[in-house]
C-alpha cells in the first residue's frame, strides 16, 4: 500500500496514540548531544568537524600506503624488474603491456602491467579503504541519519530530501553503489535528478585519491566548483523537470558504539566488491587507450576536437587521450592528465572536464540497469535525459571555468 506523506503522518499519529504511553523522563547526555547534531545552528559546525575528520583521515591513510609503500614497491622494484625481463622491447605488445621502456616511474610508463596495476592497487585501494572505513563508522554510530535531517532543508531547495545525502556520500566512494542507493528516493523525478547530478558532479574515491595524490593544492578549488555546480544545476533541474518532491520521513536511531566485527565485515564486503570491478576496468582502460594510440585514433581525435578543447574549454588538445580513458576509469584519466604539459589553470579545467564529461562505463551500465526496471522506455528516459543534461552542463560549466580564467587574466 502506498500513501501520500500527509496520510503517513496521520497514520503515524494514530498508531502512536494507540500504542505509546507517555511518562516523565529525563534527558540524558546522549540525548542532548543527539539533539545538538540535528539542529542547524549547532549541527552544521559539527558536520564541518566530521567532514574535516574524513578528509584528514583519508589523506593520512591513503598517503601512508601510496607514498610510503606502493610508490617505492612499483617504482623501485616492480617496474625495473618488468622492464628487464619482459621480451620484445619496441614491439606493440610491449607498448600495451609495459608501456614506455625508458619510463623512470610506474605512473609515466603507461602500460597495463605498470600504470594499470599501480593506479588500481597503489592509489585506488588505499583511497577506497580509507573512505569506506570512515563512512561505515559514521553509519554504524548513527550519525548518517542525523546528517540527512540536517541537510534536508538545503536539499529541498533542489527538489531532493535529506536522504539524498546517502547516495551522494556513497558516490564519493564509487558512483555505482551511489546510483543503486537512489532507490531510497521516492519519486521518479528525485531519482532521475540524483542519478544525473551524481554522475556529473560527484568525483569517486578513486578519482579523489588520484587528485589528492597528484594535485592536492588544487583539490579544494576543484571540489568547490563541482559542489556549486551540483547545487546550481540541481536547482534548475528541480524547476524544469515535472514531478513531486515529497517530505522526508526518517527513523533516527540512538548513537551507538560501532562494533568491530560489523565494521570489519562491511569494510571487507565493500572493498572487495569495488576492487573486483575496478581492476579489470583500469587494465582494460590502459590497454584500450594504448591500442587507440597505436592505431592513430587518439591523434586523429586530438586534431578533430582540438579547436573545441582549446577555444571553448581552454585545455590542450592532448587532453583527448585522458578523456577517452575516462570513459573506462576516471581516476586513470586524472592520472594521465598530470603527465601532459599545461598551466595549473588548464590542469584544474581538465580535471573538472574529466569529471563532468561522461560517467565511467561502470556507472553508465548501472544507470541502464536502474532504468531497465521500467523497460526500454525507462532506459531511454534515464540515459537520454542524463546525457542531454550532461552535454548542456559540460558546455556551460566547463566553458564558464575557462571564462573565469580569462577574466582573471590567467588563460
Amino acid at each position, binding site marked *: 500500500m502506498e500513501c501520500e506523506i500527509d496520510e503517513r503522518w496521520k497514520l503515524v499519529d494514530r498508531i502512536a496514540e494507540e500504542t505509546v504511553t507517555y*511518562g516523565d*523522563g*529525563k*534527558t*540524558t*547526555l*546522549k540525548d*542532548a*548531544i543527539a*539533539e*545538538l*547534531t540535528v539542529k542547524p545552528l*549547532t549541527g552544521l*559546525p*559539527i558536520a*564541518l*568537524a*566530521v567532514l*574535516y*575528520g574524513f*578528509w*584528514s*583521515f583519508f*589523506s*593520512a*591513510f591513503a*598517503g*601512508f600506503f601510496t*607514498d*610510503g*609503500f606502493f610508490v*617505492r614497491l612499483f617504482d623501485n622494484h616492480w617496474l625495473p624488474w618488468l622492464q628487464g625481463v619482459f621480451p620484445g622491447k619496441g614491439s606493440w605488445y610491449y607498448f600495451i603491456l609495459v608501456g614506455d621502456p625508458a619510463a623512470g616511474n610506474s605512473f609515466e610508463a603507461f602500460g597495463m602491467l605498470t600504470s594499470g596495476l599501480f593506479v588500481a592497487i597503489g592509489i585506488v585501494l588505499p583511497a577506497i579503504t580509507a573512505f569506506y572505513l570512515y563512512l561505515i563508522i559514521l553509519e554504524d554510530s548513527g550519525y548518517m541519519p542525523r546528517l540527512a535531517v540536517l541537510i534536508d532543508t538545503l536539499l529541498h531547495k533542489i527538489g531532493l530530501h535529506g536522504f539524498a545525502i546517502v547516495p551522494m556520500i556513497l558516490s564519493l566512494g564509487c558512483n555505482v553503489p551511489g546510483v543503486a542507493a537512489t532507490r531510497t528516493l521516492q519519486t521518479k523525478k528525485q531519482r532521475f535528478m540524483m542519478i544525473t547530478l551524481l554522475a556529473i558532479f560527484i568525483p569517486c574515491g578513486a578519482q579523489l585519491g588520484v587528485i589528492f595524490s597528484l594535485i*592536492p*593544492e588544487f583539490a*579544494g578549488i576543484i571540489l568547490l566548483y563541482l559542489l556549486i555546480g551540483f547545487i546550481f544545476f540541481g536547482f534548475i533541474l528541480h524547476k524544469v523537470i515535472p514531478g513531486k518532491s515529497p517530505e522526508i520521513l526518517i527513523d533516527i536511531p540512538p548513537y551507538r558504539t560501532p562494533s568491530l566485527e560489523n565494521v570489519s565485515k562491511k569494510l571487507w564486503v565493500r572493498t572487495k566488491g569495488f576492487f573486483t570491478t575496478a581492476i579489470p576496468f583500469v587494465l582494460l582502460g590502459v590497454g584500450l587507450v594504448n591500442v587507440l594510440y597505436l592505431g592513430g585514433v587518439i591523434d586523429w581525435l586530438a586534431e578533430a576536437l582540438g579547436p573545441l578543447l582549446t577555444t571553448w574549454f581552454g585545455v590542450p588538445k592532448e587532453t583527448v587521450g585522458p578523456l577517452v580513458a575516462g570513459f573506462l576509469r576516471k581516476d586513470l584519466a586524472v592520472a594521465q592528465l598530470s603527465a601532459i604539459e599545461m598551466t595549473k589553470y588548464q590542469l584544474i579545467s581538465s580535471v573538472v572536464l574529466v569529471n563532468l564529461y561522461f560517467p565511467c562505463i561502470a556507472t553508465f551500465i548501472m544507470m541502464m540497469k536502474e532504468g531497465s526496471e521500467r523497460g526500454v522506455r525507462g532506459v531511454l528516459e534515464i540515459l537520454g535525459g542524463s546525457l542531454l543534461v550532461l552535454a548542456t552542463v559540460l558546455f556551460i560549466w566547463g566553458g564558464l571555468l575557462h571564462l573565469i580564467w580569462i577574466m582573471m587574466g590567467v588563460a
Partner: protein
Amino acid sequence: MDENMKDKIGGLYFGVFGIVVFLVGILEIGLGVLNKTVHFGPLIFSGYFMLWRGAILFFAGIFYLLSVKKFSDVHQKAKAMVASIMIWIIAGTQIFSIILDSIIGDGSRWFNTWEGFLSSYAPPYIPSIILLPFTLVVAYYVLSNKDTDEKNEMIE
C-alpha cells in the same frame, strides 16, 4: 565536593578555555586566509587545512562559551562535550597522521630508524594538539553524570 560548586568550577573553567579556543580559531582563520605559516615555540600554524581547522576551533570556542551558563544542566554539558569532540577530531587525525609518518623510512629504507621514529613526535604541533589535554576535563563531568544518565535510560 558539593555538586553546585563542582558545576560552578566547570562553568568557569570552560568559560576561560572557550575564550582561548575561540581566539586560536580566529588566529588560524586569519593565517589561513593570508596563507601564512607561523612558528611560535612548540606551536605551528600551517598546512592545507588551516582555514578549515580554524573554523572548527572558532565554533568549538563558541560552544564552550554557550555551555557556561547553568553548567549543571545536561544540555549545557552536552555543548562542552561536543566542543571537546570537535577538538578531538582535529587532534586525533593529526596524531594519527604523525604516527603513520613516523613509521615510513626515507628513500633508501622501507621503515624509519629508531631515531627518526622518535624525532617524528617532537614539536612543533598544531594548536589542537596543545589544546587536547585541556579538553579532557570534560570527561570528568561526563563520568560524574554517568550514573544519573544510566538511571534515566533505564526509566525510558
